[in-house]
């Protein structure tokens, strides 16, 4: 992100709206920014920083719902919710802001069981590029009134305007957890472990892969978790059981380097790993493999690897270079973007 550009830090949705109306009048290009952790840097006339929008606005513990401002960090949100024994089941790094998480569709290992932000987001407030404030959803878990703008803003990477507030469905914090870890696995064994765990009725919360290690998270009641860990360890074989995560658990790739996200149908896990291994590209491989997703990070030229992977998962997955700025290419996405931001001022990739 370009440091010399003017930065505004709105404190409320209305503040943000007046800033964006003004920017629209002047035809300024704008980039929304959360914690500034994004991998893809973009330039703009104006940076709207959400860090002053950092409050947990409402935690209705009895309803398992919380409304937060977009600049709140997930670490802060987790702390507030934990006081009532609850959590937002999106275990991203604690510095990530709520808005940044939604805009990038980021999720952690719990993605396997709970999905991504789109699955837990039940209401959203945004400011459109022209400065119009809009809401959709609400603060009830079950609601089918109107189009769900939250879905649209998930993965929008700043191109549809600024997310200012979000309401989420919460879950109780588990009484107990167990991590089942196997290290030094060959490729075939890793694939076998991940697929067996992902399809187990013992209901794992996460199924992760990191280099030659595989890990499974079980959550639940104290007795239940102990028994399930015993059963699953027996079924999978060679797993060590621990109540603390291994150091690599949920760690996102760390640039410098090219970060590539590959998504795929689980049946193609072996194929994806084989392609990476045989490509000769030196790269780290981590992520929620059981959920059909891996992050690759490399310091060498990855273009060949990317094109081979794209061909392999075509129609049944995706390959995204997360260190490159994103701009909508699909005709329907472009049509949506053109409705919200006809002149393409927001988070322009160019």
């Amino acid at each position, binding site marked *: 992100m370009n440091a010399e550009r003017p930065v505004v830090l709105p404190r409320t949705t209305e503040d943000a709206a007046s800033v964006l109306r003004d920017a629209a009048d002047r035809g300024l290009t704008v980039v929304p920014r959360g914690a500034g952790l994004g991998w893809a840097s973009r330039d703009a006339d104006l940076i709207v920083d959400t860090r002053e929008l950092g409050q947990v606005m409402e935690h209705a513990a009895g309803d398992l719902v919380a409304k937060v401002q977009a600049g709140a960090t997930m670490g802060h949100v987790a702390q507030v919710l934990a006081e009532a024994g609850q959590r937002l089941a999106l275990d991203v790094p604690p510095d990530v802001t709520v808005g940044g998480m939604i805009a990038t569709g980021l999720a952690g290992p719990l993605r396997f069981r709970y999905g991504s932000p789109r699955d837990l987001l039940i209401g959203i407030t945004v400011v459109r590029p022209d400065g119009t404030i809009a809401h959709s959803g609400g603060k009830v878990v079950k609601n089918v*009134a109107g189009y769900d703008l939250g879905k649209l803003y998930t993965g929008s990477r700043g191109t549809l305007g600024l997310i200012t507030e979000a309401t989420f469905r919460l879950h109780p914090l588990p009484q107990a957890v167990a991590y089942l870890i196997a290290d030094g696995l060959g490729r075939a064994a890793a694939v076998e472990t991940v697929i067996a765990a992902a399809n187990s009725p013992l209901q794992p919360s996460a199924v992760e892969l990191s280099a030659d290690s595989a890990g499974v998270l079980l959550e639940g009641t104290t007795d239940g978790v102990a028994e399930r860990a015993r059963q699953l360890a027996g079924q999978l074989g060679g797993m060590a059981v621990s109540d603390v995560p291994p150091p690599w658990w949920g760690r996102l790739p760390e640039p410098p380097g090219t970060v590539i996200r590959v998504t795929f149908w689980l049946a193609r896990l072996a194929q994806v790993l084989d392609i990476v291994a045989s490509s000769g590209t030196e790269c780290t491989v981590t992520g929620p493999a059981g959920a059909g997703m891996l992050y690759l990070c490399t310091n060498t030229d990855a273009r060949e690897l990317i094109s081979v992977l794209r061909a392999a998962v075509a129609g049944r997955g995706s390959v995204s270079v997360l260190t490159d700025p994103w701009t909508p290419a699909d005709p329907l*996405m472009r049509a949506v973007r053109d409705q919200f931001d006809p002149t393409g001022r927001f988070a322009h990739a160019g």
Partner: protein
Amino acid sequence: MTETALTQAALTEAALTEAALTEAALTEAALLAPELARICGAANVITDPLDLRTYECDGLTSHRSTPAVVVLPGTAEETAQVVRECAARGIPFVARGSGTGLSGGALAREDGVLIVMSRMRTILEIDPVSRRAVVEPGVTNLAISKAVQHLGLFYAPDPSSQVVCSVGGNVAENSGGAHCLKHGFTVHHVTGLEIVTPQGELTWLGNGTGTAEGYDLVGAFTGSEGTLGIVTKVIVKLIPIPEQIHTILAAYETTSEGGRAVSDIIAAGVLPAAIEMMDALSIEAAEAAVHCDYPAGAGAVLIVELDGPAAEVEAELATVRAICEQAGAGEIRAADDPEQRAVIWAGRKSAFAAVGRISPEFIVQDGVVPRTSLPAVLARIAELSEQAGIRVANVFHAGDGNLHPLVLFDGPEQEAAAEELSGAILDICLDHGGSITGEHGVGVDKSRYMPKMFNADDLDTMQLIRCAFDPAHLCNPGKIFPTPRLCGEVPGNHRKRPPLPPGVEIF
């Protein structure tokens, strides 16, 4: 001529012009029949007025409108061709699945084509390792679970009409079901959609993984009530059948006692698969209809279902039982084999139909409130019911605050009062920060309530999506939004123009 008379004349002329236009529109849609027959086969096009009447309403029978023509395409490509014909001529079209919707979402247009998807009912692919199935939109909800049962898998969303309702309709409505408290709605279980855009192009949203680059168009499309295009293939998630399922029935003197049990279960950190409640009147109806043998004299019956790994269900069961007792349950029954569980569920599942036993007519309402507001909301509904002299039977998904008050009435003289009470219930839901619909959709039935829940900017913003997908406003028009937004020309038209049908020239 006086000014009034002038206005009168102008109005009459306008009405005549409108009538002529409507007549022309009707004819134009009907004239499409030969073209539709060429695309889909004459046997799959319906023009006979009597046969068309079959399609005059969906599950909401209070709204009726007979389509100009009905077509039943057999493939995605045929569907796309049908839509292209409509788009080229500016004729509105409406997609329909099994017609079980409860908000008139599939209500036909008299000047339009009704595209019925029920012939497309093939399960195309089952991938047990990836736990995905690819199905056509006319496949029924329950058919998916039946097809994958031998693999130890099932499809989680379970709307009460699951024996007949179609997956395509489920996508349009983002259908829920009794077990969505834990397992989520249709939108949580659909990972890819092949659609026909309102211009008649076949395209894919999502890729089946659940994560695609950019906007979550699968999510935005799901629940858009057929206004953004027509689904021709659906990729659904399958999940392992739970090791154990345990159903508990607890009887209480009042719904507020039952409500206390629900709050305590949630506070204890237990997330059951389902938490349902019925009040005295709905218990009475169910008893009359199916002899469900619920505890005699109960003022409320609570049904809690736990599912998951056996070790967890055992632990949770002890907690839930203790909580139900502490809340003052007069009787508790528990079952873990399918037959006994079905006995417990029988009364609840029959409730809507059963109300027919105690009232000649009734309105099924669908509203949502934050769960903790349920006692206050039920009390207020009881007050209004008493004031209006209209009985209300309450059946609700207590776990997620989704109410289905059944507003009972007898004859046309009570109908208006029942309608009014039913509307007032939605106002109560909104007063408590809730929603006007939890699972039945807005359709034609509730579009007039949308401005109570959302402001003009919210509705305008939602319709930007509509403008992106359907700028000509031909795809299921008149649903969800009380006032359609005009879609202005936008710079850079990225949509391809639909190809012209053969024989059409541009002058």
